[in-house]
């Protein structure tokens, strides 16, 4: 027996697979699926761009807010729109495919191949990350180039704020994927979570106009902190530590919970 297994293991090629090529193929098919079912891309890129254009065209949005150091309403809304796109993406676009992979038994199927099922997750994150970055960049460029929003004071601060916001929200998306039993329930959970999250981001009442209590609460919500960090980077310079730490904290907590509760089958 042992001589048989020895001769067999000698006959088998070394356990190295063409890993990079395999990951590339998984990413390619994940991207194809996103492209062929563009609902979520419309939500996370199309909707923010349309809102930017509508708000940019409204004269009332170009008045300075009284008592807020000359902050213009449109400029207050740009970070909110950026965060809205990101949230749509991470609450719906990211967990949706992952949960359907699990529902269809694809994660299970993959665990019988040389490639671990976690690669499907990683590929999905890569694809959604590209969409997120594209959405953020487009909203920024349109608002500056077409509607006179200020060029960000601290590009490094903006990049860091966006990355931490992406970190916190992607981790939240993975937590939704961990907890949602079916692809349909992702939609229900996502839509339900979107409303309070976006409220504290200032979608209905920009943070600058919120009463002090709401603003304090908002500071400690993931989207409130994200809007604060982005707005500071644009208006004043490198953002203070508080919102960045809040975002980093959410990233860690959501990622830990997602890992803890994720089911592969």
């Amino acid at each position: 027996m042992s001589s048989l297994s020895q001769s067999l293991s000698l006959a088998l090629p070394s356990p190295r697979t063409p890993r990079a090529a395999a990951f590339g193929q998984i990413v390619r098919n994940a991207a194809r699926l996103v492209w062929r079912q563009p609902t979520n891309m419309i939500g996370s890129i199309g909707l923010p761009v349309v809102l930017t254009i509508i708000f940019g065209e409204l004269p009332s949005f170009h008045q300075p807010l009284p008592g807020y150091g000359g902050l213009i309403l449109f400029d207050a809304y740009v970070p909110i729109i950026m965060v809205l796109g990101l949230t749509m993406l991470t609450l719906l676009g990211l967990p949706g495919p992952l949960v359907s992979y699990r529902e269809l038994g694809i994660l299970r199927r993959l665990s019988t191949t040389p490639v671990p099922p976690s690669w499907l997750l990683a590929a999905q994150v890569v694809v959604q990350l590209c969409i997120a970055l594209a959405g953020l960049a487009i909203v920024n460029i349109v608002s500056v180039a077409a509607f006179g929003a200020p060029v960000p004071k601290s590009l490094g601060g903006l990049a860091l704020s966006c990355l931490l916001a992406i970190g916190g929200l992607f981790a939240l998306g993975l937590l939704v994927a961990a907890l949602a039993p079916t692809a349909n329930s992702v939609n229900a959970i996502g839509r339900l979570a979107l409303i309070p999250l976006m409220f504290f981001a200032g979608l209905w009442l920009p943070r600058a106009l919120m009463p002090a209590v709401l603003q304090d609460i908002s500071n400690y919500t993931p989207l409130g902190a994200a809007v604060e960090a982005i707005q500071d980077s644009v208006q004043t310079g490198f953002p203070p530590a508080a919102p960045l730490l809040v975002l980093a904290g959410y990233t860690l907590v959501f990622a830990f919970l997602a890992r803890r509760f994720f089911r592969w089958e």
Partner: protein
Amino acid sequence: MPTLESTAAVPVEAPVAIGGRPAVEVAHLRKAYGTLVAVDDVSFTVTEGEIFGILGPNGAGKTTAVECAIGLRRPDTGTIRLLGLDPHADREKIHEIVGVQLQSGALPAKLRVGEILEEYRSFYRDPADVGELLDVLGLAAKRGDYYRSLSGGQRQRLSVALALIGQPRIAVLDEMTTGLDPQARRDTWELIEHIRDRGVTIVLVTHFMEEAERLCDRVALIDHGRVVALDTPARLAAQARGGKTVRFLPSAPFGDRLLADLPEVSRVEREGQHVVVTGTGELVNAVILALHASGVTARDVQLDSSNLEDAFVKLTGKNLDSKGAPA
């Protein structure tokens, strides 16, 4: 009958098919989920080049046993070797040489057949050619079609294709024809034989008797997490009946004793006008001669060929569930 019951008590080492090298060795496998014992004590050996059937009703522990065997689940106790390799210690090698088609797996609706196969092909070091595999599976014309546009049979064949794309030495197919129409089922059977002819060892999990009888060189009957019998389908069927059955319409009435006293006969039953005689040896001759001696002619004589289904009922005391099973 007594021989069958005794085999249920000890782990069965059934006759090994010719050609000899073991592809799959499972010894004293046990797996419990809490208090539920899914697999109690399962042992079997599959020889290279064999089509080996694992047959049993739903909930018998077939799938759990197979999932342990391929390393998807860790058994509580027992040893497993696939071509001499341990499914956990040699996980990566196992995944290269064992192709698996799990029960009821689907794929993304909006990926094309060719795209799916190219993706899975990239996972392996020495994969099959996509075009050739599609030809063999009769899916060549579907290469550019979305998964959602495929029929049930086509989806099943694609699933089998994914199990084979890495050119495995062992293919494990779990309930591969469940939900297929009879034609698609027959096509899939032909395909399996074709794959075996290419030297692949096949482990077939099924609850279709017809499938096991048609395809398998040997069959393990599993019930309540145990192997209750392991042999060729024909031998299992013969054992289960404890002999043969002759059914006929007598030309005149006669007493049961006439036949029951024959050494070849073990049982005489009446089914309406018909008489059913169970026994061994030259049963038909003995019955006809005895009847003839008493001036009775047997008409409408049927030699009832017992089958695996009978074996199953005999061994487990129940019918296979009716879910999609052929009548």
